[in-house]
C-alpha cells in the first residue's frame, strides 16, 4: 500500500516535469468523476437504508446527477468559492469514509503513521518528489491544479508588486500533502490566503473517523479532533516562520495518534471507574 502511494507520487511528479498535462488532467477528471458519482451513490444508499426510507430510482438519479455535474463544473471550471470549498470537503469526506470502511483495523493506523513519515521526507528533502513538484510549479509560475487544492480565500491582484506572504499547499491525488509557503514579490498575479492540499483533509478525516468508529466514546473522538486542530495551528505557525513548503500531515497526525491511543487506554478506564463509583471531580 505504501509502495503504491510512493510510486504514484513519483509518477505524478515525473509527468508534471515532462509537461504531460493532458494525462494529468484526464486522470484528475476521471478520479473526481468517479468519486462524485459512484461514492455518493453508495453513501446515499447507505443513509437511506439506515433511516429505513423508501426511495425510487428516478429521484436518486436526479439527485446524484445534479450533485455530480455541478460538482464537476465547480471544481474543474469556475464556480462560487464557498461551493467549491464545500464540494472539496464533501469529496474528502467521502474518500475518508471509503478508507475507513474498507481498510482492515490495524492497517489504517499503520498507514496513517507511515504516510506522515513519508510526507515529512518527501517535502523537506531536497530530492523529495513533492518538493520538486512545488518548485517546478513555482518556476513555471503557474497555479497548481485546482482539483487538488483547497483555498480559503482567492484574491487575484493583477499588476501589484505586493510582497504577499501566502501559503500554498499541494496535495497529490494519492494523498500526500504538504503546506507550502512561497514568497513571490515579482509575480504578476498573486494568490493570498491559505491553501491546503486535499490529501491532508482526507487523512485528518480518516483519523477522526476511525476514532469515532472504533473508540466508541465521545471523549476519544473529541480529543482527536482537538489534537488535529492544534497540529494544524502549529503547522501554520511554522509556515509563517519558515516561508517554505511544509508537510501538513506529520504534526497533526502524530498529535492525533498520540491523543487517540492515550485517551483510549488511559482516560477511558479512568472515567469509567469514576462513573462506576459515582465519584465526580
Amino acid at each position: 500500500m505504501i509502495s503504491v502511494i510512493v510510486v504514484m507520487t513519483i509518477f505524478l511528479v515525473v509527468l508534471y516535469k515532462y509537461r504531460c498535462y493532458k494525462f494529468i488532467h484526464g486522470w484528475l477528471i476521471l478520479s473526481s468523476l468517479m468519486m462524485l458519482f459512484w461514492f455518493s451513490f453508495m453513501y446515499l444508499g447507505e443513509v437511506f437504508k439506515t433511516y429505513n426510507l423508501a426511495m425510487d430510482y428516478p429521484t436518486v438519479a436526479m439527485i446524484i446527477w445534479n450533485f455530480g455535474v455541478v460538482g464537476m463544473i465547480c471544481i474543474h471550471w469556475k464556480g462560487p468559492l464557498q461551493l467549491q470549498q464545500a464540494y472539496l470537503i464533501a469529496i474528502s469526506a467521502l474518500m475518508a469514509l471509503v478508507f475507513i470502511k474498507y481498510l482492515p483495523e490495524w492497517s489504517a493506523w499503520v498507514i496513517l503513521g507511515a504516510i506522515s513519515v513519508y510526507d515529512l521526507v518527501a517535502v523537506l528533502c531536497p530530492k523529495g518528489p513533492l518538493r520538486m513538484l512545488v518548485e517546478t510549479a513555482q518556476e513555471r509560475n503557474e497555479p497548481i491544479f485546482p482539483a487538488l487544492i483547497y483555498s480559503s480565500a482567492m484574491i487575484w491582484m493583477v499588476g501589484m508588486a505586493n510582497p504577499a506572504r501566502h501559503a500554498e499547499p499541494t496535495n497529490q491525488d494519492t494523498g500526500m500533502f504538504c503546506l507550502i509557503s512561497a514568497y513571490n514579490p515579482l509575480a504578476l498575479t498573486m494568490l493570498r490566503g491559505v491553501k491546503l492540499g486535499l490529501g491532508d483533509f482526507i487523512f485528518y478525516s480518516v483519523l477522526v473517523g476511525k476514532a469515532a468508529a472504533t473508540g466508541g466514546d465521545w471523549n476519544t473522538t473529541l480529543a482527536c479532533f482537538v489534537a488535529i486542530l492544534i497540529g494544524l495551528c502549529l503547522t501554520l505557525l511554522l509556515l509563517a516562520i519558515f516561508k517554505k513548503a511544509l508537510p501538513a500531515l506529520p504534526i497533526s497526525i502524530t498529535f492525533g495518534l498520540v491523543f487517540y491511543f492515550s485517551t483510549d487506554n488511559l482516560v477511558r478506564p479512568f472515567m469509567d471507574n469514576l462513573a462506576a463509583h459515582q465519584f465526580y471531580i
Partner: protein
Amino acid sequence: MNLERLPNEEKLTLCRKYYFGNVYNVCVWGFAFLPFLWLVNVVWFFKEAFVKPTYTEQLQIKTYVKCSGLGFLLWVAVLTTWITIFQHFRAEWGEVGDYLSFTIPLGIP
C-alpha cells in the same frame, strides 16, 4: 472565484453559461435536468442582478437570473409532486413500485 474581480462582460458570459449549463455555449445541454445548476446561478448572481447599481450588461444578467429562478421553481414543483405520488402509492403499485424502488424499507408494506 471572486465575482468582484471580474469585468462586467465576463460576468454576463458566466451567468449565461451557468444558465445554459454547458461550457461551449451550445443550447442543447442547457436544459439537461439541472435545477441545482440554476439554483447556484440564482444565488450567485442575485446581488449582481438586483442589488448593485445599474450597468450595461445588468439587464441581460437580470433576465438570466429570473429565468433560472423560474426553471428552478418549476423543477421543484415537478419533483415534489413525483415524490409525494411515489411515497403515497408505492405499496399499492405492487410490482412496478418495487421495480422503481432504490431502497425498500423493512417492516413497512
